């Protein structure tokens, strides 16, 4: 069964894209991640123009994170002050990112840039996660688990513009969360991801936000950031395909439910090890694309704006 996608301008097999949404939804439910870092590459490798993949995926992330954010809000696990500062930075970063996507497309370097971003970030995050999960597995086998050191002061506490973040029980400068937001916004616009994989570790290790608030606040920020990014991609680059987004959303929400059920049967460090392996594999796939000799050195495109 085929559907002609109105913006991607390609005839897509509905079942394949539903299945893709379902599979990525399953994994994101299993690992508790947004899944953008899996979905965008899958779309690119299945022939969707990279810029359309990135723009459309931001719409799908909005859909998949809104229910999580809603549930966290009901459990009062969102620090709105922290989320607001992150979001302010995020929107700024997204504005820059969307502009950058447009310019890179015009000079034909967008595909390369996206691959480089994926290789760099997935490589680094994947390695860190792999090492961390292996360490935890070894330690639990030995019987001792290192407690997280808290209340430690670092350079962040010396910065001005201090704000009181009630929900997180923090009194720190607004500058670090703002710049974390900018960085995540940039990545969201360029890579078609929610940015949770950067934001969650940054909040835990740099800002020392309590873990129970981290996930809710991150989801809250992702909903609004990806909504803003979708709007920007649609209005500036015309690279959001609503039909494709809908297919992915339907597959994604169903898959996520099953993934969450499956996730309850696995141990946390096992999950993290598997996730790390998955992240590294996606990174390697992009690295291969950059290093291997292309089958055809030439490529043709209809210039941006000349649809």
């Amino acid at each position, binding site marked *: 069964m085929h559907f002609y996608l109105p913006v991607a301008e390609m005839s897509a097999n509905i079942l394949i894209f539903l299945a893709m949404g379902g599979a990525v939804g399953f994994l994101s439910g299993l690992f508790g991640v947004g899944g953008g870092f899996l979905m965008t590459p899958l779309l690119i490798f299945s022939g969707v123009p990279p810029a359309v993949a990135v723009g459309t995926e931001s*719409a799908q992330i909005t859909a998949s994170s809104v229910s999580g954010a809603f549930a966290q809000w009901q459990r009062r696990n969102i620090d709105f002050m922290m989320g607001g500062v992150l979001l302010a930075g995020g929107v700024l970063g997204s504005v820059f990112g969307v502009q950058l996507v447009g310019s890179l497309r015009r000079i034909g370097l967008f595909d390369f840039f996206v691959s480089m971003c994926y290789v760099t970030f997935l490589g680094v995050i994947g390695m860190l996660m792999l090492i961390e999960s292996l360490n935890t597995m070894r330690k639990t086998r030995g019987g001792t688990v290192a407690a997280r050191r808290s209340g430690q002061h670092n350079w962040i506490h010396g910065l001005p513009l201090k704000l009181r973040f009630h929900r997180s029980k923090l009194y720190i400068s607004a500058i670090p969360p703002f710049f974390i937001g900018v960085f995540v916004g940039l990545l969201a616009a360029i890579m078609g991801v929610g940015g949770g994989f950067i934001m969650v570790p940054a909040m835990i290790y740099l800002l020392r936000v309590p873990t129970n608030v981290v996930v809710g606040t991150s989801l809250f920020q992702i909903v609004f950031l990806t909504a803003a990014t*979708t709007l920007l991609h649609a209005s500036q680059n015309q690279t959001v395909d609503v039909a494709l987004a809908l297919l992915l*959303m339907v597959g994604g929400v169903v898959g996520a439910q099953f993934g969450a059920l499956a996730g309850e049967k696995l141990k946390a460090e096992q999950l993290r090890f598997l996730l790390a392996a998955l992240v590294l594999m996606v990174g390697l796939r992009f690295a291969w694309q950059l290093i291997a000799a292309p089958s055809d050195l030439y490529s*043709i495109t209809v210039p941006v704006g000349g649809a």
Partner: protein
Amino acid sequence: MLRTEGRRATLGLLATLGIGFLALAAPETQAQRKKAPPPVAKEAPHTRVEEVRREQQPGAKEAVQADVSARNVAVTSSFNGIEIVIFGAVDNSQQPSAESGYYDVLIVVEGVPGRIVVRRKNNVAGLWLNTSSAAFELVPSYYAIASTRPIDEITTEEFRGAHGVGFQHLRFTPAFGQAQALSTEDLKEFREAIVRLKRKQGLYIQDNYNVAFIGRSLFRATIELPANVTVGPFETRVYLFREEKLLSQFTVRLNLEREGLERLLHGFAFRYPTFYGFMTVMIAIAAGLVASTVFRKAAH
């Protein structure tokens, strides 16, 4: 939808076959039915008797007429490419039978010309990235050649150059003001790359034995418009040859247009991009909330 289209095409062909056979007996019937008369038909109308006599005279002027199975093709959400049947008839055919190979027919279908950027990758420090590019104007989005025999056997080089027949005679030109200075050699390579990639995408087609005579005067050809074809008007040029000499020529247009939901969404996305983006976000939020309530209820 496609199936209906196919059925319509078959019906159209059958109808025209009927008309075609009628035309053999009574040429004025056909002249009345066709909207655009061929150049030769512009002469004063003949009586039926004269026409029949003329047909029997050896050396009378032949004329070709043609039409396509669907003049307006709708690109709807279920569009997955379409096969177009091009059929035509030779007036005053001197051909003894369909198999005699007395005439040669050449059909060229050309899509909207537009701008295309072609890029070349280079290895920079072990990584492959686009380093040089060239823009070309008036590149046909689609270009198909169908003929009774290979085109260099039925036409002269001069004809092919003058009428833009054959991939090497496509009239697209390097755009004015390139991003980089390019040598003639580079431009030639870029040009060849466009043709090669377009052929790979199924958008440039050459089929040497695709036109078949099915009678003394009737011929037909099928042309594939793939799913990735650009919408717009298509020009179909039909040439009739006898021993490399052009006898007659006929042009018919077909139009590929977005319709229905497809047209609505595409127009929305490109004409009201901000509003479209806003709508997409609303859909996403609604979908997420609906899903979470549905599954929460199901879990209880």
